[in-house]
């Protein structure tokens, strides 16, 4: 922890240059466009995992310059929190490059990964970014936690409490937050992995709700994490910074959550890559994050497995892997749902590209987040298997494989197969996938072996 850093951030949030939010956005888009041109960053639809170290470094330089020039916009004070280039680089130099997640025999060390790194990616799973019902939430969590290749669990969110809608800032938010934390604890206990790291309880939207999730006996522990969010792009507020304060104080894990929009303020893929690097720097500098959750989101389809998304993730991963020691986690987000074969193809493309580009894994966020109860442990198992099979691959290998996988799902991005809810693809008594869902999993694995991926 950097000593006395948070008060300095608050001070700058209260004294930095005043700017209307719309003006910040407009200035940001203008500067991104200029930097993309200045650094010669170009998207290549024929190579979605470029083995181009020089371009990766240019993406890094452009992202660093953007963050230094723009800083972060504090919505609470309508001021920009800015840092010098030297300050940013000094903070990055202090990054430990690894973080221990969970406790006891279930603890894992999630490390900074390099490009084409032979060390395995840590696997996070759970119904993150997708609501669950009160009825199936415990089973969905168990289905993920019991997967041997899953290392960490996201508790996700349930939007009701005893059937009543949970409204932010109400007592139900506190109750829902505490309930979801305890359900996640119970899931990892039932899976025989009581020390497994839990990354966030997503139902709560306020700092108070997040704080309520902590309870050493039945809720989150300091070995678990809460997400500290950024608002797109490069924005924060005092509610988010207050989470950092609480997490510092109790010694819990801090996660920087960013959801850059592909086609949003950054524009096309090159600009989105540049602002995504800057977003990671915000998380490192303002949140002192132990790890960073990169959840790139397509503006129209709310996924990141389309060609633009895959290229962007690859370039962001490589830029950060080559120039920092920060610990990065990529959130694979697909348009398909469980029970649809396309879901596995989308996950395969995402896992291949991001594993060789330096990320740890999280997934899968399904159905673009639109259909509740459509997460299962099977897709997490699949992502982890593809990721492990990718460890001996070069970026060129991954690009070639993705070229062959894309036709299996690309046409469905605009008209996705949303699949079926949990109870139709898993036996709710045994918490095991149905034969139909398992057959699809095996069939896709066989397809991937046929094109050369050495899956176990």
């Amino acid at each position: 922890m950097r000593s006395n850093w948070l008060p300095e951030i608050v001070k700058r949030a209260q004294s930095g240059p005043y700017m209307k939010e719309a003006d910040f956005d407009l200035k940001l888009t203008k500067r991104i466009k200029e930097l993309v041109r200045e650094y010669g960053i170009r998207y290549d639809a024929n190579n979605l995992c470029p083995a181009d170290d020089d371009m990766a470094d240019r993406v890094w330089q452009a992202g660093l310059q953007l963050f230094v020039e723009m800083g972060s916009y504090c919505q609470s004070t309508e001021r920009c929190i800015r840092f010098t280039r030297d300050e940013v680089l000094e903070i990055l130099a202090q990054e430990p490059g690894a973080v221990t997640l969970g406790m006891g025999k279930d603890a894992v060390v999630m490390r900074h990964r390099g490009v084409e790194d032979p060390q395995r990616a840590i696997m996070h799973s759970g119904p993150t970014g997708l609501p669950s019902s009160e009825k199936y939430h415990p089973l969905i969590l168990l289905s993920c936690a019991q997967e041997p290749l899953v290392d960490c669990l996201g508790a996700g969110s349930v939007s009701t409490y005893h059937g009543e809608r949970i409204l932010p800032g109400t007592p139900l938010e506190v109750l829902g937050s505490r309930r979801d934390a305890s359900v996640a604890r119970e899931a990892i206990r039932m899976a025989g992995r009581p020390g497994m790291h839990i990354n966030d309880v997503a139902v709560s939207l306020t700092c108070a709700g997040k704080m309520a999730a902590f309870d050493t006996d039945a809720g989150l522990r300091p070995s678990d994490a809460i997400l500290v969010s950024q608002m797109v792009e490069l924005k924060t507020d005092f509610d988010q910074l207050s989470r950092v304060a609480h997490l510092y104080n109790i010694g819990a894990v801090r996660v920087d959550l960013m959801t850059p929009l592909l086609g949003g303020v950054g524009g096309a893929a090159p600009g989105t890559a540049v602002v995504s690097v800057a977003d990671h720097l915000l998380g490192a500098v303002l949140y002192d994050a132990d790890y960073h959750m990169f959840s790139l989101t397509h503006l129209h389809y709310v996924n990141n497995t389309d060609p633009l998304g895959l290229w962007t993730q690859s370039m962001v991963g490589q830029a950060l892997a080559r120039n920092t020691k920060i610990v990065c986690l990529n959130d694979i987000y697909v348009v398909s749902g469980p029970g649809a074969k396309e879901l596995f193809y989308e996950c395969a493309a995402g896992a291949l590209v991001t594993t060789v580009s330096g990320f740890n894994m999280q997934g899968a966020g399904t159905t673009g987040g639109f259909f509740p109860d459509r997460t299962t442990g099977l897709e997490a198992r699949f992502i982890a298997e593809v990721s492990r099979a990718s460890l001996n691959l070069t970026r060129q290998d991954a690009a070639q494989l993705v070229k062959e996988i894309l036709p299996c799902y690309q046409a469905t991005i605009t008209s996705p197969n949303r699949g079926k809810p949990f109870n139709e693809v898993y036996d709710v008594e045994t918490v095991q996938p149905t034969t139909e869902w398992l057959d699809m999993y095996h069939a896709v694995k066989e397809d991937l072996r046929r094109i050369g991926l050495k899956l176990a």
Partner: protein
Amino acid sequence: MNNPDTQWGEMQAQLRAAIDGLDEDAAVALAQAALAQGVTPLEFFRNVVEPVLTAIGDAFSRLEVFLPDLMRAGVVVKAVQTKALEPAIRASGGVSSSEGRVVIGTAQGDIHDIGKNMVALMLQVNGFTVTDLGTNVSTAAFIDVARRENADIIAMSSLLTTSLPFVKDVLARLDAAGERARFMVIAGGAPVTEAWSQAAGLNGFAEDAVEAVALCRGLMAKRREAAA
């Protein structure tokens, strides 16, 4: 005007260039020059601004252009409206060129703003007068501002199921105040479906910013028909 179609085409190209270059002055000068030649503000809007914005909106829906292009269009067209068209309308004693007045915001409990911003921008660049209340907007604020601005439409964004009750609450409060017919209320966002919007009693819902513009235009057309 000689060869009006050609001239409209040339002006559209010049406006598009001004938008791409974020050159407000060039766009305002273009509009002022046209007005000086006898083009009315409405003619300029219908034949120059609207086709350019429709093209940008269509390209955006295919993601051939991106949010920054929309943002630039918003800035430039707003300058054209406020610095050239509106003064000309006022000088001639005419009525506003606005397509309608919209009060927009993200419902209480929700701080997501990107979708709402896009809708606000698309409405604005398509000729609507938009008052953007930001995020986490209380029910009371929606109604108070709609009254103050004499709005036609209250547009609410909700990305969270937890904020949907506040959308319904706006309708309930308008009902209770006897003002339900005064304001048309629409909503959008991931949890807002056609079935939900009908059950809640909304005047409409839209899947995206392009649909929202069409919806608002349709609602305003009905309102004008009813008033005629």
